[in-house]
């Protein structure tokens, strides 16, 4: 117990009343301490108890929660304080930054008022003085024109700007501890990089300790000093960040690290995946909660839960086999994949409680790797040329008048050859999803042309019998969306969900095919009569994939297929998709904002900005040698889950928000020149006026780059990018 710790949590337990009177233990014995100026990361997946523990620390859990243990803030015990006493500490001593700043700010108050109110809760100052301080704080967190923006409402701010406001509120009263609960989770990577910079600034300005709650190991690597990994309500490993990443001592941590798709790894490397899913709190047994998913589990693990034991200076791990010197990162049998090997043991161990279906890893097919690589250059399954989708932007309720255009997709050309994967990447608002929806609609596009499986959509939609003629095309293209729970009808059993596309297309006998599909995605055929809610997130996504495959499509559109899933089950889904592609010769159009995932799956990649492709080509070539300044900035914003690399690398932090694709009528200036230049670090660094003039006057077209079948849309592709913005300076 050190004396300089500002926040000290000891043996914290939190439980909620569960069904049948059995309490649900959400946090089971968490201890940590943070000193001023230090950053502690609490890492865990959904249900690991990481957020509940922080809410318990500031006393904001619902009243039915039972909290025991000790939370000391500057030596003072907080548990047991009443609301009045706690309210004096909240915001002043311990401040919070929450996820999803859209819902975290009251919509009817101006942001300046909100910050001023946070100040006046604790200090007797006039409202004018509080407002002046609010403007200062907004300036500190990097809001341009703070005096004017203080009068704006939260809905007038972008997600990143709102998160800056949240941070300004948090530091308004010079707290000693800032608890940041998933502060960057809902944000684009470019904005995430900015927000982390702002948090660092906030930490400097206040000297506060930061407790960073996150599931993103990349963020931990770059930002935290120490980390505690939580699993099923318990801390399973605590260590300094460098040591944690270099040599994890708990199989779960090791599994998480090796299951992460990484930007600095090559394409197509098979990810090690952790089988199964994080356990639900209701079904915890006596043994180690990770044992059913652990490749190293021995009998002892299934009967006795290991204690978190100190194993070195500031290091602790909860594993029976810590002392045995196992090479956790390598897996028990080399690289062949711990997940695959373990798939037989996992289901029995976890399915004893509540009869919940478990998630067996897709059975590895040793011969699958031997199947010939798809013939590159085979006939294209999708060809898009100069696709345009503009929406009118109107104003007024009775007499609607057009005031501008949303240029959602503004001239996109793509090709996907059979059996290959094309990834579409870009920030929110870049037109990824609109492009995909235009393809899936199978209608004549507003501008340009789309050809799916050799069928031109304009021709397809002309003449009689469009519906009948479109049927085979419809069957040949399928989609998997981000949130499997939302895209599966909750009232249909899985068997019916899978049979539905078959019946729609007139296949009579479906039972056999449904069984086959379930097995294909690594589920049991007997699961056909279960409902989607009875499955875990990863399993639901497997059902969604099975449904997409029902009609033997040749092209599958994957719209953020792993973004809604827990980190530890992502790898399993990505491996499954890779296997299916090899076995069935599928072509994928893979939409993602997660560049590390894209790095892992894509053969070719198209980078979108403002409805245009700015860089396009072979994935290896683009990722290893990005040429367009936007691609460089995007790649540079992705945190690498390796503290050594992460802290040394230079970063390009793009200023400002992802731009809006809205162009107001009569605003000719917006369409002139390169539309990326307002955020372009290269443009900002150009010295020759004629070079700048080129960016200002001429919209760059995609031009071939090098020899690797690549193209990029920039006037200065060969220019060296000197405009690396140093860490710590934000726009």
């Amino acid at each position: 117990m050190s004396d300089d710790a500002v926040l000290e949590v000891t043996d914290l337990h939190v439980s909620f009343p569960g069904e049948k009177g059995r309490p649900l233990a959400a946090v089971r014995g968490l201890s940590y301490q943070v000193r001023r100026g230090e950053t502690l990361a609490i890492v865990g997946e959904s249900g690991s108890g990481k957020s509940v523990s922080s809410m318990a620390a500031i006393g904001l859990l619902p009243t039915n929660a039972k909290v025991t243990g000790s939370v000391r803030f500057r030596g003072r015990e907080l548990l047991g304080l009443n609301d009045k006493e706690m309210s004096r500490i909240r915001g002043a001593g311990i401040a919070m930054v929450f996820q999803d700043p859209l819902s975290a700010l009251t919509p009817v108050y101006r942001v300046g008022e909100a910050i001023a109110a946070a100040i006046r809760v604790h200090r007797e100052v006039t409202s004018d003085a509080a407002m002046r301080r609010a403007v200062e704080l907004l300036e500190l967190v990097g809001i341009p024109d703070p005096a004017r923006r203080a009068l704006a409402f939260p809905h007038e701010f972008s997600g990143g700007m709102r998160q800056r406001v949240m941070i300004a509120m948090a530091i308004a009263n010079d707290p000693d501890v800032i608890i940041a609960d998933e502060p960057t989770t809902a944000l684009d990577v470019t904005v995430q990089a900015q927000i982390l910079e702002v948090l660092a600034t906030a930490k400097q300005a206040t000297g506060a300790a930061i407790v960073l709650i996150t599931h993103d190991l990349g963020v931990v690597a770059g930002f935290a000093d120490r980390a505690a990994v939580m699993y099923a309500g318990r801390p399973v490993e605590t260590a300094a960040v460098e040591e944690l990443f270099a040599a994890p001592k708990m199989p779960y941590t090791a599994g998480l690290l090796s299951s992460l798709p990484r930007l600095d790894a090559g394409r197509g490397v098979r990810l090690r995946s952790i089988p199964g899913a994080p356990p639900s709190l209701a079904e915890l047994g006596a043994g180690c909660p990770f044992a059913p998913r652990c490749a190293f589990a021995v009998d002892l693990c299934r009967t006795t839960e290991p204690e978190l034991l100190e194993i070195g200076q500031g290091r602790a791990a909860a594993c029976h086999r810590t002392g045995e010197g196992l090479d956790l990162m390598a897996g028990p049998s080399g690289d062949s994949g711990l997940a695959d090997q373990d798939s037989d043991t996992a289901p029995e161990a976890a399915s004893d409680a509540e009869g919940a279906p478990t998630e067996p890893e897709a059975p590895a097919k040793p011969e699958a790797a031997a199947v010939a690589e798809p013939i590159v250059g085979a006939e294209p399954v999708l060809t898009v040329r100069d696709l345009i989708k503009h929406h009118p932007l109107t104003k007024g309720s009775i007499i609607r008048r057009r005031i501008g255009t949303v240029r959602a997709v503004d001239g996109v050309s793509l090709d996907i050859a059979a059996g290959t994967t094309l990834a579409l990447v870009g920030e929110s608002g870049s037109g990824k999803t609109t492009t995909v929806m235009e393809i899936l609609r199978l209608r004549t596009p507003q501008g340009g042309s789309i050809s799916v499986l050799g069928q031109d959509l304009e021709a397809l939609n002309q003449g009689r019998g469009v519906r009948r003629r479109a049927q085979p095309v419809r069957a040949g293209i399928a989609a998997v969306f981000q949130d499997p729970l939302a895209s599966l009808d909750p009232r249909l059993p899985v068997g019916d969900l899978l049979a539905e596309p078959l019946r729609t297309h007139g296949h009579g006998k479906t039972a056999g095919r449904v069984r086959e599909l379930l097995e294909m995605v690594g589920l049991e055929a007997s699961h056909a009569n279960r409902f989607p809610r009875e499955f875990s997130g990863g399993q639901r996504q497997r059902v969604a994939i099975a449904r997409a495959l029902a009609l033997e499509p040749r092209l599958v559109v994957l719209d953020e297929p792993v973004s809604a899933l827990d980190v530890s089950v992502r790898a399993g889904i990505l491996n499954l998709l890779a296997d299916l592609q090899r076995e069935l010769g599928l072509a994928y159009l893979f939409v993602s904002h997660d560049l590390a995932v894209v790095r892992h799956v894509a053969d070719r990649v198209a980078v979108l900005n403002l409805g245009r492709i700015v860089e396009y080509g072979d994935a290896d070539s683009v990722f290893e040698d990005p040429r367009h300044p936007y691609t460089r900035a995007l790649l540079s914003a992705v945190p690498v889950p390796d503290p050594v690399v992460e802290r040394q690398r230079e970063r390009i932090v793009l200023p400002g928000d992802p731009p809006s694709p809205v162009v107001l009528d009569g605003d000719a200036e917006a369409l002139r020149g390169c539309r990326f230049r307002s955020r372009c670090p290269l443009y900002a660094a150009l010295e020759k006026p004629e070079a700048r003039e080129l960016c200002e006057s001429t919209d760059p077209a995609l031009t071939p780059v090098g020899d690797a079948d690549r193209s990029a849309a920039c006037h200065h592709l060969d220019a060296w990018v000197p405009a690396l913005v140093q860490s710590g300076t934000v726009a």
Partner: protein
Amino acid sequence: MGAFLLRRIVNYLVLITLATCLGYLLAASSLSPREYFAQRQPPPPVASVNATLNQLNLNDKTPLEDRFAHWAKGVVTGDLGKTIDDTSVSAEMGRRMGVTLRLVLFGTISGALVGVALGFISAIRQYRPSDHTITFLSFLVLSTPVFLLAVLLKIGTVKINQAAGTTLLPYTGETTAGLAGGWFRHLVDRGQHLVVPTLSLMLGQAALFSRYQRSAMLDVLGADYIRTARATGMRRGPALVKHGLRTALIPMATLFAYQMGMLLTGVTFTEKIFGWHGMGEWFVDSIGRQDVNAVAAMVLFTAVLILIAGLLSDIAHALLDPRVRD
């Protein structure tokens, strides 16, 4: 804000015109003033009936367009025509309007306020005894028709007056006939007469509002921004009012406007039962007398009232939710 309200007012004027014209056309084509006269004993001669009808612009032999044009010309100059008994509609309406407005105004506003307060308490004390009590009582009131409620209130008032030994709460008419005294005496007297009828309107209104307010409040109770407010150190009570109630009130503003229509139906019963000579009573009587112009005037009155309520709710909405102003 000003431009926003101006746009709304223009909208409303168009709607009022439309509603009133349609109201007149409906009344003129479905009511039969000729029958009203023909049924008199002894039956008047046809020629004299025609003459009266012509004079009142009620003759069904005149084409509907002509009657409408005649009526509309009058309305534009502020003349709403004659009642079937050859008195001025405008004058009669002027007499009765104040009576109804007084009832409706106090009834809606107090009902909405009480309902919002009850709903708020109910929501923040969800599943506690106070919530259950409020829920039970509001459903009891909601399932009681206005005329039954009014009669029950009358009985209750009698008991109270007996207990007090004096007519504390008079429940017949809107004022005591032949009252002597100064303006203050009159004001108190009118106030006393107002209590029970207003209560009969208010109760239903409050019961309904409390249900809506409760669910609106429950929606925002779990909202992230209340958690944020609490995390800045605001205590539970102030956070619930400033961040919770403030946001949950917004949908109530819309409800307020739509409730007005329902309340005007209720006010007819209230006026009849408590012997107030207001618009509701007049409306029912006019239909019985086949009085086209009076019915049309009532439609105009209703339209104006509902749209005033709409305007009020727009103003409330704009005040509560600054996002709609621009």
